[in-house]
């Protein structure tokens, strides 16, 4: 096994581990904000997985998928952030604390 494929395999293992750890944070996350940040992190780990696959497969076309995901992934986080703001305002109107 040459150095290139060994490095690719190590990167795959490490990225998969970070996906698993982020998934744990999504499941046990104490507050909604923790879960949203963990989902954002998962999106960016997936971007690096796609980039790694583009390198290992030798098809640069896959990089465009990573670019599209990077451009669009944060939209979901922004929408979640606005949802959290709206929920906090609603709870404040009702007089209860989060």
């Amino acid at each position, binding site marked *: 096994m040459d150095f290139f494929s060994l490095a690719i395999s190590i990167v795959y293992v490490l990225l998969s581990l970070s996906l698993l750890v982020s998934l744990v944070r999504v499941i046990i996350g104490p507050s909604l904000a923790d879960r949203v940040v963990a989902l954002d992190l998962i999106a960016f780990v997936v971007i690096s997985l796609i980039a790694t696959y583009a390198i290992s497969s030798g098809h640069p076309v896959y990089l465009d998928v990573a670019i*599209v995901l990077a*451009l*669009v992934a944060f*939209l979901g986080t922004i929408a979640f952030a606005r949802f959290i703001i709206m929920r906090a305002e609603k709870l404040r109107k009702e007089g209860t604390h989060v």
Partner: protein
Amino acid sequence: MKSLILHTATRLMIGVLVLFSLFLFFRGHDEPGGGFIGGLVGAGAFTLYAIAFGTEATRKVLRIHPITLIAYGLLSLVVSGLIPMFMAEPFLTGKWLFIEWGAFDTKLSTPLLFDIGVYLCVVGFIVTVIFSLEEE
């Protein structure tokens, strides 16, 4: 949403999103890309603008009502299908026109017209859905 970070980032991101959407659109047909994914990324740009500055500002930026965009898209689809019929060929046959300028070649075709229609339809549809969800 009132946030200085979001407003500043949106002004920068809009250009990148629209540019990449046009890049995907023009690379289409022979290589990965095309009207549908280009339209999706372009609609993402207007969605980001609508989240950051509100739907009223986005309507002013868009200038055209999104349903009108869908109508122009469908018109483009029908025209791309009708052009081969005037050359005594079946509906939706792909006709190509190669123009050689010397330094670079231009390839015009009815599939390009069809892709423009798909692009306008996708952008119009998604922006319509986003606007009606935002204004609810």
